[in-house]
Each structure stands twice: as C-alpha cells, then as structure tokens.
C-alpha cells in the first residue's frame, strides 16, 4: 500500500477523550481529494491576475473556467469511481471543479477501503468526532490519482481568543521563567 499522509500527526488533542471503536455499520463521511490537472498553469495564472503590473490584473476566472482548468483527468475520475464502486460505494457528492468527492459508507467498508484505518469515537464536551488513531493506506495504483483522504486524522481545531487577564498572567510567568533561565 501507499500512505499519502505518513507525516500527519496522530496525536489526540488535549480535551478529547476516547470513547470506543465505532460499530461496523456506523456511517462515516470521507472526503477524497482527487489529483487536479494544470496546477503549474494555475499558479502562473494567479501570479498574473494578482500582479498590478500584469495586463491580466483583475481578469479573474469564473467557477466554470476554473473547472475546465483544474478538473481531474478522465483517467483519474474513472479510476477512483471504479475503485469506490468495487467496494459498493455509490452516490458520492462532488463539487463544481470535480476535484473532491464526499462519500458516505459504513465504517467496516471504510476500513477495508483504507487498509490500516480503524475508526474510533472521541468526545470533547458536547462535541464528538470519529477519527483513526492509526495511519491509512491506499492501493499503490491510486497514488497518482488521490492527494489525501479527509476525515481520518485531523480533529476540529480549537480556537480561543485571549483575554487580557490571562495574557498578563502568561506574560508574568514567562518573565519569571526568563529571569530564572
């Protein structure tokens, strides 16, 4: 197999606790990022439409034009759909640019589709998330067609604003530690 996200952290963030392994028939939603075409061209185009000195400055693409530029090749679309179909996964949702697929499937199917993955449930307060604490892999022939699969490892990011009071405590603590160092 081929592991597209070998370097992804598998650490469970602070505040999340493990509940149990999900039942085989529990439904999961996985997001497949399909390999796009003409990324180099897109990069150059962004440079031109964003550069005030370029005659193309401000000449942006419509969503349809963007789709024509980056949509995955027919080979990629066929290969991925055939692969998913072989596991009985049908009715995946796509987006205008055809470069993402969102598929619903039972956990047992997801674990066969992505060898190595094991889906577990975690909770943080009232929130719950299903993630795999072990890396997934894909068949090697998919390496040129899929960038990554979303919904396995990354937990919802925490976002906290800082309050001035805690900031001052933090600064004081840091100052004291700096003095000690």
């Amino acid at each position, binding site marked *: 197999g081929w592991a597209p996200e070998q370097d992804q952290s598998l650490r469970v963030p602070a505040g999340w606790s493990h509940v149990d392994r999900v039942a085989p028939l529990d439904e999961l*939603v996985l997001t497949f990022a399909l390999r796009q075409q003409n990324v180099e061209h897109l990069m150059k185009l962004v440079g031109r439409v964003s550069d005030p000195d370029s005659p193309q400055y401000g000449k942006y693409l419509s969503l349809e034009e963007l789709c024509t530029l980056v949509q995955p090749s027919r080979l990629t679309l066929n290969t991925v759909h055939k692969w998913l179909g072989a596991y009985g996964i049908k009715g995946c949702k796509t987006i205008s640019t055809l470069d993402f697929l969102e598929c619903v499937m039972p956990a047992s199917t997801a674990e066969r589709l992505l060898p190595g993955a094991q889906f577990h449930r975690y909770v943080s307060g009232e929130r719950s998330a299903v993630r795999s604490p072990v890396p997934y892999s894909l068949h090697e022939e998919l390496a040129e067609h899929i960038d990554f699969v979303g919904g396995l490892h990354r937990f919802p990011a925490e976002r906290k604003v800082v309050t001035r009071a805690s900031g001052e405590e933090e600064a004081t603590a840091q100052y004291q530690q700096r003095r000690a160092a």
Partner: protein
Amino acid sequence: FHLGVTPSVIRKRYNLTDRDIGALPNNSQACAQFLEQYFHPADLAEFMKLFASSFGHCSRVDQVVGHQGLGKAGLEASLDVEYIMSTGANISTWVFSNAGRHESQEPFLAWLLLLSNMSSVPWVHSVSYGDDEDSLSRAYMERLNVEFMKAAARGLTVLFASGDAGAGCRKLAGGSHTFRPSFPASSPYVTTVGGTAFQNPFRVTWEVTDYISGGGFSNVFPMPDYQAAAVRNFLHSAPKLPPRSYYNSSGRAYPDLAALSDNYWVVTNRIPLPWVSGTSASTPVVGGIMALINDRRLQKGLPPLGFLNPALYKLQEKGPTAAFYDVTQGCHLSCLDAAVEGQGFCAGPSWDPVSGWGTPNFPQLLKALLNP
C-alpha cells in the same frame, strides 16, 4: 481617552470617516466558523446600538451558510461578525458556519469545499483558524495551498489570522528547540494578519507589536517572489535575529500586515465583555477594510482586489508610502530557553515577521489600491 477597543476607536485610528461605509448592494464580506459556536443576532444588534451610533452600518447578518445553532453564543463568533461589520460597515455580511455536519467530517475542509462549490460568494473572507505546520501532512497542506490558489484565481481575498503564540515553539527529538509556524497562515496564497496594541492602552496612540502576534517562516512553503526583497531587507537590517537553527529563512514569511488585536469590547449573550484579544480580532478588522476598498473599486468599474499580497508588497517596495502605519517597536513570544529567552522576532522599519507591513491607514491605502 478610551477604556478599550471599540468600533469608533478602530475607525479613528485607521482614519475611517463617517462617509467610509459601503454603498453597493452587490458587495459582500464573510467570516467563517468551525466550532459549534454561533453568533446571536440580538448580540450583534446590541453591539451596534452600543458602539456604532456614529457611523452608518448594518445590524444583521444577511446570509448564514451552514447550520446556525440555537445554543449559547460563542465569543469568537460574536467577535468576528461584530468587527468585520464595524470596519466593513454597511456591507452585506455572510457567515459560513461549518462545525462539520457529521462527526467524521473535518470542519475546515468542509468550509473549503463549500467555498469551492459556490459560484457566487463574497469577495472577502476572514478566517481565524490554524494548526501547527508540523502537525499536518505535507500532502494536505500542499493540496490546500492549491485550493487557496483556486480562490485567488476567482478574485477572492482570503485573510487568515497569524495565530496567538508569537513565533511558537517546538521541542525536537534531540531536545533542542525551533519556532513553530502555523498553517494556513504560512500559505503563500493567503494574506496573513498579525496583531498590535496601542502604545498607551487607554489612548488612540501609535501601535506597538502585540507579543502574542503569530509570525515567522514556513518550513513547508518556499518564499514566494513577491516578498523576497522585503524579507531579505528585514534579515539584513534587523539588529538582532534569533539563531538560524530556529527558523527557515528561505520559507514563506508571515504575517503580511496587522491591525489592533488587544483589549477589544465584544457583546456576547447580551453582555458587553472587555479585554478580548488575539489575531482573531485583527483579522475581521482588516477583512472589513478590504471589503470597503472593494466597494470603492467596484463603484469605479474596477475588479475586486483578489489575492492581495503581490499588490501589497509591490506598493510598499515602490518607495515610502503612508498606506500603512509602520510598527517598529516590540517583539513576540517564542521558546523559553537560554538561547532566545522567550523572544521571537522583533519589529523594525518596513516589513517584519511580527507585524508585516504594519497597520492600515485607510485613506492612503484606498488611494494606493484604487490604482495600484
């Protein structure tokens, strides 16, 4: 004299007059939420009643994309809508609310898919979300970088908060330390917003860096051409730099610009709260200002700003400009060790990795970006 940052304080500092409000019905701005946190329309209305009587504004969000729950309002969600609608006053505002409909979804990815799939979306997006670069796979970051290119190709301006941990700190396997960049702040295809504080916290004075303001150099993305000269200038002219082993001086450097991030007033669950800080506050402020500039550009028949950075760096490199208040005092946080003693980078004249080019001086920035 003031008792904290409110819309009128921000508008005064960045020289927004009562006439500097949106005028076009077809211009819009957006902020994004990724937690089960929601704003309450009643909080927004109360905030505007308390703090926005001196300028024309909207008191409600025009469109919520995604699920808006009914529980308690979240401080971050309240902050975003209240401040993007204070600088981007009278501009139609959308909120993208993506807590992840299913427990196996990644909320940030769900937002990106939504953005990629809508043919008509606001021109400006303010996002306060980030993860340590080293916690994410390269495949994921590189692909998301392409998604930001796609947004740029469509003319969208995507702003990310630079983070609230200064240069950050990571302990390596051998026990040594390095700084810890944050993604998507480190993507070369987004505009990253850092934070500042008033030199005198109770007066509208000049600004110094906020010590929490995220900034540094990516370990994943190489430095884009548009910023090479500015960053080289910083690296050559800074009187003191952290040891080279702490950062990758050839990586994408951020933030690109900054705004006040300290001591904000926010109304949440009908209660006005003081002392709210973070680059989560500065990012919607800049978002609203950019939406206002788009308003003027659209009025003149010009296209919207799109991906800002090439124009921003070019503008500053052409020579001295009053478009930004250069922030030259203060440093941000980093590792607590003997080598750096808790200090990351320090601000200096021109671009620096704490406050970028500085904070916006609206009339001059507008003038410059109407004809970049």
